[in-house]
């Protein structure tokens, strides 16, 4: 039962993280792609930071920021009754930050590679920026969208450092598959560790195979 629970928790974390990233990533990638601001390189660096930082660094600072002893942690606890350390909510927040570039970068690149005048043509046809985004831009970057979704999901399933730092290892609450493997190996339960590991390998493989199958079948409207 613990095995199933841990896997379900992992998939739930990955799914929620991916949905949140999709909602946040689209407007941010859109802004970054079309921005001419002097701040753009700084924003891009911030977005990409989780790519190069060791996950434990991110986890460490999140732990410091949200611990009940810190000002922010205390304020969240008192005002919203929200505790982010060693809870599922904290895991989601850490995963969103950690997988951020994996959603934003493909989307930004997708927007940047669209023909220059598509959005402007839509405006001159009387359409709002919202309609333009929904009906013109997003449908034409659907491969980039799919890449963002797959990468964010897979990356969240595979994360370890951030999750361990901010979530710990509470079965049924914050214990995800990657931590369970580590835990079982440490306890010399190689059989159980193998069960987790093999399931992750199979899941990820099926997931990626489906992605590539779709990728090959769908004719890209705009090639890049």
């Amino acid at each position, binding site marked *: 039962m613990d095995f199933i629970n841990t896997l379900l928790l992992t998939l739930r974390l990955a799914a929620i993280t991916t949905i949140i990233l999709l909602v946040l990533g689209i407007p941010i990638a859109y802004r970054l792609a079309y921005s001419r601001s002097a701040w753009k390189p700084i924003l891009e660096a911030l977005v990409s930071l989780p790519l190069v930082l060791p996950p434990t660094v991110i986890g460490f600072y999140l732990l410091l920021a949200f611990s009940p002893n810190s000002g922010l942690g205390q304020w969240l606890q008192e005002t919203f009754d929200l505790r982010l350390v060693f809870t599922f909510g904290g895991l989601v927040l850490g995963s969103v930050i950690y997988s951020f570039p994996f959603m934003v970068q493909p989307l930004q690149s997708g927007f940047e590679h669209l023909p220059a*005048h598509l959005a402007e043509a839509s405006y*001159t046809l*009387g359409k709002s920026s919202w309609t333009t985004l929904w009906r*013109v831009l997003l449908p034409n970057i659907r491969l980039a969208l799919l890449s963002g979704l797959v990468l964010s999901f897979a990356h969240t399933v595979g994360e370890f450092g951030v999750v361990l730092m901010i979530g710990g290892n509470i079965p049924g609450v914050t214990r995800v598959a990657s931590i369970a493997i580590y835990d079982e190996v440490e306890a010399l339960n190689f059989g159980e560790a193998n069960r987790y590991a093999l399931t992750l390998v199979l899941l990820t493989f099926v997931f990626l195979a489906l992605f590539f199958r779709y990728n090959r079948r769908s004719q890209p*409207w705009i090639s890049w």
Partner: protein
Amino acid sequence: MDKLVSSLNCTLHLRDGQRSFELDVDFHLAAGELLALSGPSGSGKTSVLRILAGLESRAKGRLVFQGQVWQDHAQQIFLPPQQRSIGVVFQDYALFPNMNVRQNLHFALLKHESTALIDELLDVMDLKDLARAFPRELSGGQQQRVALARALVRRPKLLLLDEPLSALDTQMREHLQQYIQELHERYALTTLLISHHPEEIQRLAQRVLVMEKGKIIGEVIPAEERKKGFLLRAIWMGTVDGMAQVQLGDNILRTVNHTFVNHTGVAHILSAYFFTIAKIVCVFVAVSVAVLMF
């Protein structure tokens, strides 16, 4: 101001690669007129079109279209493209790749608006058989016709064409010139056409404004030249004494603001070359003599 006349008077700081310059234009556009803008690339023609379309909000000045203020920097008025009665054909056509021909046109309709105009436009532009085709399946000329048809779905008063035929071969260009002419008359449009091609301008435009480095430096009325027996051969051939030159007929060059006329143009250029060569020869002889003497 007269409701039938539109005017644009504005400045805008432009950057073209390394150099930057000031766009500074002031011109009128009569209702129903087909006005061409010509000049070397980087002279600011497309920026003028973008200002008219509402795609360039940084411009300082005033734009009034047939009695309606579209842009007034001093009064902080700026109508976005959605609120201007315009149709734009971009140089790269900008058709939506995820929609077929009919869907591209349909996109421009308002909710619950009748599709009768779409059927009519598909018919006029000979696109009926291609209605279900996607842009990637169309030739350049076909894409161009779709872009033209799509630009007219909103029933605009002002049609803006940014070098619409430059990517097409000669035969296709002539064919599409007919379509442009027909649409301009049929839908009583006021049209601004950016073009480099003298024969295109000769055929379509009632008036040509020649631009260079952000300024309008001259005006040609093709019909008047035709009456005199001249045909436009080239619109912009460089500047002499700060004035742009137009080639009319075979050898007749003329500066477009009519300050000095006809055949002297060729002689002027030749004499300028001759004078420069003579100067170089003189300097060379003088230096050689000096070297030999010492």
